[in-house]
């Protein structure tokens, strides 16, 4: 059917077109404690058509999904509808990505979903649970994906890759009181050792969560991030370098200029990477067919390159932009021991730590933290952290040591100065 769709698009007379065909073979397992709640399988295909039209007023696009069961008449009708709808909106014209070779290997073999699933099932049965810290429930998602992108400019690339996710809820209890901690891990395949290591640490956090004191009102304080929440901090950097934000004047970061008026902390380097170990995003091409490559985006706190999709890149006059899949942050100058000096709040569990990509505002209710007042350490919970990355970027310290969170490699520790800590007492 896909060949017929392409034939119809070529004959349609539209200015340009893209077809994305994503096939997913997935297995899922849901557990309550270690008993199987239910198991699921799926075999689905999603074909998305995007049609572009160009006239004197500009260029417009319209998109829709074509059911894999559609016949030729349905496909033709959809293309005609899209061809009309694309004339209704007008953007500044640009050209779709041309075909370009990518670095790295070609098409890979289909991942073995059964083998990956077995690795997860086995890993979860082998965790070091105790009478007081154990697993409440977990959900395992394993899939093999094949994504093909075909465009009117001659791009025809296919990528096959594994994509996994496991969500785990950990319980800890003491004297009739029980708490839970939530974890989710994205990856390509199963990293059994990493999973066991992090869940063992989570169980220790669970123990601590049972003996917390209310977070004190600290006013402005240094906050140390040592968990996956820190990815959100660095995601803000990537958002500020996105051509969509720059072209719409929501980011004022410019190549050759530092991202802060002055740096009292570390000058970070942010790099887009073609691959990271066991990332679920190790693709050669982005969703628009641009080859993904290793590229320094921010060097020592100074903007070098923007990232993002073709449309906004072309508006900025950039021809070789791409949507990155893996990112790495480096440039931390201190050891973990140095970052753990003085007074600081180490926040390890949040309800939901967020950084607003537009305003840079940070938010997070503290579920577990360690308040180091310079002499003593108190385990705390409750209250919140808030403030703005626009301020924190000037006083951010990061560790030399790094840690991997699926498609992000970031400093193991990140310390922000002057964070507002609203306490409970």
């Amino acid at each position, binding site marked *: 059917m896909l060949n017929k769709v392409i034939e119809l698009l070529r004959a349609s007379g539209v200015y340009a077109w893209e077809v994305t065909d994503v096939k997913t073979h997935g297995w899922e397992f849901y557990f309550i404690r270690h008993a199987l709640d239910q198991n699921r399988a799926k075999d689905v295909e999603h074909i998305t058509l995007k049609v572009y039209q160009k006239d004197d007023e500009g260029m417009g696009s319209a998109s*829709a999904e074509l*059911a894999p069961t559609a016949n030729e008449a349905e496909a033709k009708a959809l293309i005609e509808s899209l061809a009309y709808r694309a004339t209704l909106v007008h953007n500044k014209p640009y050209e779709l990505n041309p075909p370009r070779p990518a670095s790295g290997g070609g098409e890979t073999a289909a991942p073995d979903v059964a083998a990956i699933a077995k690795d997860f099932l086995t890993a979860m049965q082998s965790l070091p649970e105790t009478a007081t810290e154990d697993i409440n429930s977990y959900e395992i998602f394993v899939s093999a994906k094949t994504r093909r992108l075909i465009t009117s400019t001659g791009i025809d690339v296919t990528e096959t890759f594994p994509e996994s996710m496991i969500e785990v809820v950990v319980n800890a209890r003491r004297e009739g009181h029980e708490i839970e901690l939530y974890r989710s891990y994205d990856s390509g395949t199963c990293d059994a050792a990493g999973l066991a290591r992090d869940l063992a640490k989570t169980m220790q956090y669970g123990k601590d969560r049972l003996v917390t004191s209310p977070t004190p009102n600290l006013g402005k304080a240094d906050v140390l991030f040592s968990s996956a929440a820190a990815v959100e901090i660095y995601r803000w950097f990537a958002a500020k370098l996105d051509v969509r934000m720059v072209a719409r004047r929501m980011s004022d970061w410019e190549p050759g200029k530092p991202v802060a008026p002055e740096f009292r902390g570390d000058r970070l380097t942010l790099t887009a990477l073609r691959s990271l170990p066991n990332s679920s995003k190790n693709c050669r091409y982005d969703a628009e067919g641009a080859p993904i490559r290793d590229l320094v985006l921010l060097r020592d706190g100074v903007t070098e390159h923007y990232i993002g999709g073709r449309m906004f890149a072309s508006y900025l006059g950039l021809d070789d932009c791409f949507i990155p899949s893996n990112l790495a942050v480096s440039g931390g100058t201190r050891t973990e021991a140095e970052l753990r000096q003085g007074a600081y709040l180490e926040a390890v569990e949040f309800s939901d730590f967020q950084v*607003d990509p537009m*305003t840079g505002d940070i938010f997070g209710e503290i579920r577990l933290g360690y308040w180091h007042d310079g002499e003593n350490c108190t385990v705390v919970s409750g209250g919140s952290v808030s403030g703005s990355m626009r301020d924190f970027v000037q006083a951010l310290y990061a560790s030399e040591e790094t840690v991997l969170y699926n498609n992000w490699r970031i400093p193991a520790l990140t310390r922000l100065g002057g964070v507002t800590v*609203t306490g409970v007492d």
Partner: protein
Amino acid sequence: MKAPFSPYLLRIKPSLQQLVALLRRDYDYVSVLATDSVGLTVSISRRARSVGSETMTTERGVVVRLYRAGQYREYALNEFDPDRVAETAARIEAELAAQQAVLDGCNTKVYATDALSDEPLTLFVERETEQLPETTDVKALVDRLTALSDRGMAMDERMIDCMTNAQSTHVCKLFLTEHRDLSQSYVYSEGVVIPIMRGEDGSVQNGYEGVSGLCGPELFEQLDAKLDSSMAMVRDLLRAGRIEPGEYEIITSPEVSGLIAHEAFGHGVEMDMFVKNRALGKDYVGKRVGSDLVTMHEGALCAENVTSFAFDDEGTAAGDVIEIDRGILKTGICDALSALRLGIAPTGNGKRQNFEHKVYTRMTNTIFDSGEDKLEDMIASVKRGYLLEGMESGMEDPKHWGIQCIIKLGREIVDGKLTGKVVAPIIMTGYVPDLLGGICMRSSDREVFGNGGCGKGYKEWVKVSDGGPYLKTKARLG
């Protein structure tokens, strides 16, 4: 007019019934949910304008649920060929057998559960709508949204964009078992205006106002009226200061009240969490969790908005549950499988993100009842506090009854009067029973909001609506 039921689903229905009958030979319970939901999305901003056919809930596919020997399994596909039913049945059985081999190889134990009941039920529902997303005048909609965006841009020289977005979805679902035959068709729509301004200091802020309803694209005529208030919001945000962290008397706008309802005793009483012992609410049924002024409803029938269906994704008829009655927690909401495990009746809250996803207990419309107070009296009663407006996001914590609400802004109230001072953004945290226990006034009006989506943890996104009146209570703000 009636929103017409999907011709595609009608065409494959006899074959799906055959599939149920075929699989029923080997399984004690078989259900099929088939979906064919189409949509329209128009997005307008200064630099990017597009027309699409996908919304959060557009889908076409089939999911089969099978039960045997205490174990539930599901298989989802979207290439169902009505002429090859036996082949499809064999494919499903082969795939699930391969899964079972892996499970058996890992010595997996099953959370043994009874078979779902299959009482006979037939339903065919086509809800009223004025327009359909698939046939509406897209050009007129594009022109309307463009004019609105242009008008916003002209209102303030600090504007850098004025985004307008309209989405409409025509939902069609077919649920079949050996004894059930349920069909529903309805249209819901939602639209937003998001003006974005850059301040003199380089900071960027956005306002936000939306409309939603159980209706077609005719809803978007109401969007024009939202421009002024969204512009006022972004102007206020640009001049806002930071709040001094602390506990304050607060008055929540209906939108913020809805957020509290959703995060506090929406997620807090999703009873699939009771099965896993993940919700404190399990131990509080029949006990006080709020003041006498707290009464909360949940159900697809208790409002007409984006998730007001006739039956849920497990074929349970929609309901209207009183979760909290004058401060006393009465019950939770429940999907069919969890209800079976808990020995209770399902409430019509079994929802999937789409046919590819598992059913969880999910919210529909979650709403505080209104009272008899006037907003001006509520403001006059505040010694020092804030009127909170605009919802950004929230996060549930059913196990410990914490709550996190990110709120757009707060308007300062001192000695019963709004001072004109604005603070933003605001993170509201606290202990749910304290927050609800402190509710001492509630306004007589009530609004329901259906923009945005709701996740379970960090995934499984579904449409929900929530709302309530203005509420006065105390909370910790940062």
